[in-house]
């Protein structure tokens, strides 16, 4: 088998496919904001394959690091290694605000059909909900990056028609203080520059139509659109499926396990 052949079911783990599918969202030369965990694997894999000139920015304040050991959080000293800049939040969030971030990887506990995400409280806000971590930079990045990619677990309770609490604003959102539910463009006006471009779950890859509504694009091998609909609590658009998600190549798997995460931190 050649390095660039695609692996078969059983030769990779679901987590590997998530990392590889996420990495394939990066275009060479893009400026990418990445968070802790899978996003780090994705950007580092992308830089070693299709996007050697992608610049990685970590929210804690480093730009363009060339880590030789996988960081486990964005404040990690490993993000600092061979960075062009090690500064702070004012610097990197300023770049985000300025419109200089092309792509960002994010995650959340709950996602809705418009790409809004909840990572603050499940089951409503205080006093009914279960408290989670809160926004962090999720909301800021989904607000102001040109394109975001969410990595989500495919479960019915997590894929909801509308988030019980919108931490991170997607394509259709309330305009506060009144709360009218409108397209993001009407909320951001001159600061509007994009929003969620893709969602990658453990079962498929999703994208958004012109109205900002999610649809299923590719189905991971081993799953069917029906599996995915069964793990989604709203009626999913499955009329625009373009095919099956390509499995990791042997080369990508080798990079993931032997170069990006040889210690087995995320790829156990």
């Amino acid at each position, binding site marked *: 088998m050649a390095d660039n052949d695609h692996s078969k079911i059983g030769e990779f783990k679901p987590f590997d496919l998530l990392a590889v599918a996420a990495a394939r969202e990066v275009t060479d030369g893009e400026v990418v904001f990445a968070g802790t965990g899978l996003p780090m694997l994705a950007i580092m894999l992308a830089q070693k394959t299709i996007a050697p000139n992608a610049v990685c920015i970590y929210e804690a304040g480093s730009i363009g690091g060339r880590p030789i050991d996988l960081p486990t959080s964005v*404040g990690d000293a490993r993000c600092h290694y061979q960075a062009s800049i090690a500064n*702070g939040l*004012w610097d990197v969030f300023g770049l985000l605000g300025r419109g200089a971030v092309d792509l960002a990887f994010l995650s959340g506990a709950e996602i809705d059909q418009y790409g809004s995400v909840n990572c603050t409280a499940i089951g409503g806000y205080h006093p009914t909900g279960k408290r989670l971590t809160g926004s962090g930079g999720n909301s800021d990045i989904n*607000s102001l990056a040109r394109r975001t990619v969410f990595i989500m677990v495919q479960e019915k309770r997590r894929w909801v028609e509308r988030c019980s609490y*919108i931490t*991170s604003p997607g394509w259709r959102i309330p305009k506060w203080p009144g709360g009218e539910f409108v397209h993001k463009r009407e909320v951001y006006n001159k600061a509007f520059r994009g929003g969620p471009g893709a969602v990658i779950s453990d079962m498929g890859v999703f994208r958004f139509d012109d109205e900002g509504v999610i649809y299923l694009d590719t189905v991971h091998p081993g799953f069917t659109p029906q599996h995915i609909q069964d793990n989604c609590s709203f009626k999913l658009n499955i009329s625009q499926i373009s095919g099956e998600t390509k499995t990791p190549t042997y080369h990508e798997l080798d990079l993931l396990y032997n170069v990006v995460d040889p*210690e087995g931190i995320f790829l156990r």
Partner: protein
Amino acid sequence: MGRPQKVSLAEAVRLIQDGDSLTFSGFTIWRRPMAAIMEMVRQGKKDLHLIMVNGGPHDDMLSGAGCVKIWESCWSGHEMFGKIPGNLARKAEAGELICEDYSHVQMLYRFVAGSQGIPFMPTYSAMGSDMLNPEYDMLGKAGLRDGSNPKIPALKYEMYTEKFTGSEVVLVPAAQPDWCIAHVQMVGSEGTVRVLGQNFADEEAMKAADKLIVIAEEIVPEEFIRREPEHNLIPPHLVDYIVELPWAGHPSGCFDYYEADGEFIKNFYNQTRTQEGFDRWAQEWIFDVRDHDGYLNKLGVNRLEKLRASRALGYSQKVKRGSR
């Protein structure tokens, strides 16, 4: 303001009064003043008002110990070593403390405004999120925006259409907490502060607060730190108190000095999911060890040596981090 005063950790922490508002240096599990946090728990502080760009093990620990009344920030947790801030969540869900949620940029900008002496900052960040839902103005709903507490602004935020270009922006109010407790690598003998590695939002936090306590891994000759002033962050006249205390950031990590102790943080998270669990943990790691020296002795030299950062890399390669 004169020269900063050198004090012990216990003396510094004794200056903090019940009900005071506080902020801290660092980012999630990096460069947090953990020894000071544990000393606050020992001294039984009450009704603290935490205003932070982001949280981590430190505010979760203070919450578990019942020291906190108000938490204003955008995030808390333990990175990959604990999914949620278990203690903060338990107290918030029981209504024992108030969480006021903002976004990361909004919190940062509140500190930028505070550090620049201006009343607010504008941003586009997080418009359309429920952080701006008037229903979720938790301090307002608790009747605490009535002006009686100078550290609580009259509004959580305001939407504003500026007339330069006609854009609608969010105005977030300045934050100027009573105290910043910062953990840094190095301070000059006269008080010049140097932070190594990423400085996160330290400059804003240190300048926004009314009073600044700096806890340093080491005090170095002032002459040494002034050889390269471009590497320094804060001048001595802004520092009120200095505590020299190596390893005082543990279990958080300190660039160039030591790694974050993930195993310790994971244990803390797992063992403090209930109040009984927290109380047992605090008895063992905060009260029984009596002070920071006792804490370090309990951790032991072998553990600390593994965490010690490589001089070449700024972090340790001796800690087993994964499954291989």
